């Protein structure tokens, strides 16, 4: 069976830089001296710590409880002692701290419980969802959206197709490629568990054509289940974006503000499928992941299986350190990755740590826009980045929204092709943040207005009650006086 593929708009072909890491097997990373496990590694509410400072924890033990409907729990990546629960630098471009549980490993790496294999196909879909939620699995492609929430959506709207995203269109990153090559059987098992969990009728594993070995391995492993199909898709950035993968495979464009579930689809990353296999079949929580440590500044670029919470410094150290001072340190790929502080830890959504040299960044001086329109032909969403940026520059945010700012996926294709080196994505990120800030300010102002009105009403009511009470007292006093006078008059009268 051959699936018909559909073309997407725009897109770019950045130089891949994948070969230094793609040819080497995944290696483990030694235990660092300290692990900083952030309580918020996902989209949604942060987890609530359930351990005390000084407490001994075992590998896989729950240390942070999920809070609210969109959240994920956090587990201890190794056995050891909790030394602090305090703010530590987050892998975030602001460099601001988030609350992290610091664990000093005891070196024993002792599991909380022995692995108990269960047959996932005897579980109900609801039980699979519960196990995925309890394991703290989030989207491992980078967005870090709690996976159980996505799987849970299948109980509300029927899902017909499960799409497994093995695109990995970002340059440098090869962690999904290596995972698919080396652990194809486990990945396919995870996909089949998710198929069972969503009750979908088929699974499409989409892999870019530049990963022939991964396609071959997965095709071989997928023979056990005819519902699972491996699809070769063209190598084009941003093919790994959820919207564009859906469009390529189904020909349907996700309307703005709608979820894939509205089209009967659900998209998960291959690494998520692997994590689901471990969690549901063996009851193991998500405490480690494969990270591509790459970039020209590194001495030994590798794919490493890293415990969550490992500081980037230690990770770089185990990859031979820097050959030269990196000009920029990124989490994620070079297109959409974020600049992060040196001491930040690896989190569940860290697909790569890329240290780029000055030559690799090669950002020229920003020049004036000459309206050449290259960004328009590169934009995979069909927007006009130059029009949006010029409006944002003049602080006309509403004008930018009219030009589709809210549909922008910040993929960076426009900035990549811009011959004038205009930081288009920074403009869009700035404007999106400004719009959110404005919305929060307006919401707060609504709350304040309500509170002020209620206070005004309360003050008026109190004044009225006071006046009424005073009037009543006065009336009582006068009545008493009158009664007295009358009594006196009667007395004198008799």
């Amino acid at each position, binding site marked *: 069976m051959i699936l018909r593929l559909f073309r997407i708009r725009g897109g770019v072909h950045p130089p891949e830089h994948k070969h230094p890491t793609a040819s080497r097997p995944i290696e483990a990373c030694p235990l660092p001296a300290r692990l900083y496990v952030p309580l*918020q590694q996902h989209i949604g509410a942060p987890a609530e710590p359930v351990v005390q400072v000084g407490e001994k924890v075992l590998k896989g033990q729950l240390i942070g409880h999920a809070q609210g409907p969109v959240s994920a729990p956090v587990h201890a990546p190794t056995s050891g002692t909790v030394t602090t629960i305090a703010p530590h630098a*987050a892998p*975030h*471009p*602001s460099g*601001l701290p*988030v609350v992290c549980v610091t664990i000093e490993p005891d070196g024993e790496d002792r599991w909380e419980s022995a692995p108990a294999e269960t047959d996932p196909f005897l579980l109900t879909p609801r039980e699979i969802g519960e196990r995925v939620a309890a394991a703290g699995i989030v989207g491992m492609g980078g967005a870090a959206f709690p996976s159980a929430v996505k799987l849970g959506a299948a109980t509300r709207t029927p899902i017909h197709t499960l799409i497994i995203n093995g695109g990995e269109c970002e340059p440098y990153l090869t962690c999904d490629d290596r995972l698919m090559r080396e652990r194809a059987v486990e990945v396919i098992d995870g996909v089949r568990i998710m198929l069972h969990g969503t009750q979908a009728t088929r699974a499409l594993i989409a892999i870019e054509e530049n990963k022939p070995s991964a396609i071959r391995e997965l095709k071989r492993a997928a023979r056990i289940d005819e519902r699972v199909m491996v699809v070769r898709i063209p190598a084009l950035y941003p093919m790994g974006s959820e919207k564009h993968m859906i469009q390529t495979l189904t020909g349907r464009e996700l309307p703005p503000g709608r979820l894939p579930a509205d089209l009967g689809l659900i998209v998960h990353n291959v690494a998520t499928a692997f994590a689901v296999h471990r969690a549901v079949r063996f009851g193991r929580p998500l405490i480690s992941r494969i990270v591509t440590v790459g970039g020209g500044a590194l001495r030994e670029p590798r794919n490493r299986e890293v415990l969550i919470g490992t500081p980037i410094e230690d990770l770089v150290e185990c990859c031979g350190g820097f050959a030269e001072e990196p000009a920029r340190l990124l989490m994620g790929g070079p297109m959409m990755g974020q600049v992060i502080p040196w001491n930040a830890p690896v989190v569940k959504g860290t697909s790569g740590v890329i240290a780029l040299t000055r030559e690799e960044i090669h950002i020229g*001086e*920003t*020049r*004036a*826009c000459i309206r050449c329109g290259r960004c328009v032909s590169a934009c995979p969403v069909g927007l006009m980045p130059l029009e949006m940026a010029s409006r*944002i*520059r003049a*602080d006309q945010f509403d004008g930018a929204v009219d030009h589709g700012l809210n549909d922008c996926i910040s993929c960076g294709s426009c900035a990549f092709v811009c011959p004038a080196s*205009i*930081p288009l994505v*920074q*403009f869009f*990120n*700035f404007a*999106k*943040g*400004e719009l*959110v*800030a*404005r919305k*929060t*300010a*307006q919401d*707060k*102002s609504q*709350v*304040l*207005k309500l*509170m*002020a*009105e*209620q*206070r*005004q009403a309360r003050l008026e009511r109190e004044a009225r009650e006071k006046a009424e009470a005073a009037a009543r007292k006065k009336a009582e006093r006068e009545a008493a006086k009158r009664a007295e006078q009358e009594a006196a008059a009667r007395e004198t009268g008799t």
Partner: protein
Amino acid sequence: MYAAIVVLTAMGLSLGFVLGLAARLFRVEADPVAEKIEALMPGSQCGQCGYPGCKPAAEALARGEASVTLCPPGGRALAEELAQLLGVQADLSGVKDAVPMLARVDEDLCIGCLKCLRACPTDAVIGAAKQIHCVLPEACSGCGKCVDVCPTECMQMLPIEPTVRTWRWPKPVLAAA
């Protein structure tokens, strides 16, 4: 000569009569613009603009007596919205978004006098007599009225610390293009 006087007087009178009729026909009762402005205002009646409350400020704006940049809590966003509504070109370069401030009680100095509680326009201070007071950050408008009445100077206005959730990307600075 007389003809000229008569003609001009007659024209003036008749046009005046027509305009008088029109004024009756097209009378506007309330000033709807003032109401629209008031709906945009924060409504905390904090009085930082110099008017006794948001309604008088909105009326002054509608009459054109005040600038659209009058409201410090509303900041730049409000000034832009007002300028849009009134169709004026506001010079927004002067309006720095006031760093949003929140009141906080220094618990060592608070004597539980209830003065700030009464002064707060949004009931953001909670507490009882002789008990240490506390400010609800989500209800505080940052107007600073409590600071003025506090007898022990235990009320402080502190800028809101940015967190990973409230942090926003700055505007890219470009070399003069």
